[in-house]
């Protein structure tokens, strides 16, 4: 079985977001770059399948040379092959990224394509299902349990009312959610081995224009000044509901 894991490099979730003075782009100068948190479950699930079923695991990322760090990290965790769709700058448009990925993997015969259920940051939650559509294959998104049997998958995915059990044919796109597994950390042996592995650059054959026009970036408006409620717990409780009923008019 051949497995692909698509990785996105994002600012660490502790990052305080700053916007440039023109309000057109994020100021990412002091950012610590990491693998998107949801992608860690994707890598882990792939590594477990490699260990239990002898699958080979390829990882892929789209972007400038900095994204080679997340590929290197996945190699340290045990991935067999790393593919780098190299672009001149950071590529954030979900349709463009999905198209580049679909074109890069179309003829490589993957049975399973893992993605994080969303890239922390852009929060589009789109690239996985877009690749599924562009390749004309099945999908299950926001998956917390995955079982494979004879060319098929059975996935449990989070929905409002509980878990949906989705069954489908391979090849398929699976987007992963926290709860699927406990991701491992790379060990020293893996890190040393990864340094010797090649990262294959896949140059773009065509450059696409973005599907979305980013017109403006702003910080959310500051919240109105709040106030402290004093007294005994009973008095605080009374004061709160009086405020919620009279000022907020919630109840």
């Amino acid at each position, binding site marked *: 079985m051949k497995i692909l894991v698509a990785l996105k490099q994002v600012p660490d*979730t*502790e990052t*305080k*977001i700053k916007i440039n003075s023109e309000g057109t782009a994020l100021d990412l100068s002091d950012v610590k770059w990491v693998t998107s*948190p*949801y992608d860690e479950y994707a890598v882990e699930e792939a590594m477990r399948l490699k260990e239990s079923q002898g699958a080979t695991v390829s990882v892929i990322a789209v972007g400038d040379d900095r994204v080679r760090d997340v590929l290197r990290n996945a190699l340290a965790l045990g991935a067999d092959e790393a593919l780098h769709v190299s672009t001149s700058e950071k590529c954030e448009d*979900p*349709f463009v990224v999905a198209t580049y990925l679909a074109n890069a993997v179309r003829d490589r015969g993957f049975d399973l394509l893992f993605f994080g259920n969303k890239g*922390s*940051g*852009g*929060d589009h*939650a*789109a690239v996985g*299902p*877009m*690749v*599924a*559509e*562009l390749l004309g294959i*099945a*999908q299950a*998104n926001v998956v917390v349990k995955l079982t494979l049997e004879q060319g098929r998958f059975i996935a*449990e*995915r*989070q*929905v*409002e*009312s*509980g878990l*949906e*059990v*989705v069954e*489908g044919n391979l090849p*398929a796109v699976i987007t992963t*959610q*926290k*709860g699927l597994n406990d991701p491992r950390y790379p060990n020293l042996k893996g890190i040393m081995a990864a340094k010797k592995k090649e990262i294959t650059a896949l140059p773009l054959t065509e450059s696409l224009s973005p*599907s*979305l*026009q*980013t017109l403006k*970036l702003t910080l*959310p408006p500051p*919240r*109105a000044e*709040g*106030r*402290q*409620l004093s007294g*005994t*717990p009973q008095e*605080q*409780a*009374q004061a709160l*509901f009086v405020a*919620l009923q009279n000022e*907020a008019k*919630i*109840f």
Partner: protein
Amino acid sequence: MILVLCEVKDRHLKKASAESLSAAQSVAASLQVPIAAVFLGAEATGHEEAQNYGAQHIFTCFSPNLAAYSSDLYAQTLITLAQEKKAKVVMGAATALGKDVLPRVAARLQGGYANEIIEILPGSGSFQVVRPIYAGKALMTLGFGDRVAVLSTRPNLFSLQEKKETAQIETLAAPTQDFKAIVKELLAKSTNKPDLTEANVIISGGRGMKEGANFKILEELAEALGGVVGASRAAVDAGWGLPHSMQVGQTGKVVSPTLYIACGISGAIQHLAGMSSSKYIVAINKDSEAPIFKIASYGIVGDLFEVVPALTAAARALKLNGA
């Protein structure tokens, strides 16, 4: 034409879908095109309610082949309709289903996909949308140029706009049952409560709850207020047996209830990102310096194990359940 994918719950139009239709009205006014509601499923119920929210057309496809949800079959049906009607906009609610099917539609239509939008900025001949990025740490204003816009509206953020229309109801040909993946079963939660993303009132607990069993006092307050219980990442990761589906924050759910009560949550930046668009925030914490107080509408410095039961008692006395 604007296609709005609508969902039905308990035989009625889902509130989140009514919100999508309401949001579609300002897009329709900008582009001067009609709104069409689209219903896919097994049986004919609830769809006529779409004409209360501005739908001038209703397309239905009720077929045994669509009884169980299939992302690719639903996407194909929407794509075919969008192409036939030369739709300029395809939208729906940012529900589990909407977020599953709309990216596929966008990819095939080579459209611009903006999910979880929170605002529409109408214009003359075009429109823009605002959506949060970094779980709400920043907001992005987007335009679509000549591309088809594919949008999902975040639940609870668009107010319902009643606009009575008399819609034509058209039946679409059922797709063949040639699906790639399909839902076989729903493992329903034991409670009938709404999901965090749809809840009006959320009571959340953090590290200050000390152990999972103590969430019982939050359940009691939630019961008294007609709300649901959430948790911070610290609480979910503490090994207290809380499922990740309860987690609010940058790596959990982003929520916008009317009332969010944070109990024993200090307010890490990742948590604030997930809940700071709540309309009213109440923070209960022992530490008066906790960052959560900076964004709270009402702050209570105190021991949550005394304050929360006092809130429950007061809420019961006021009979607030039913909010």
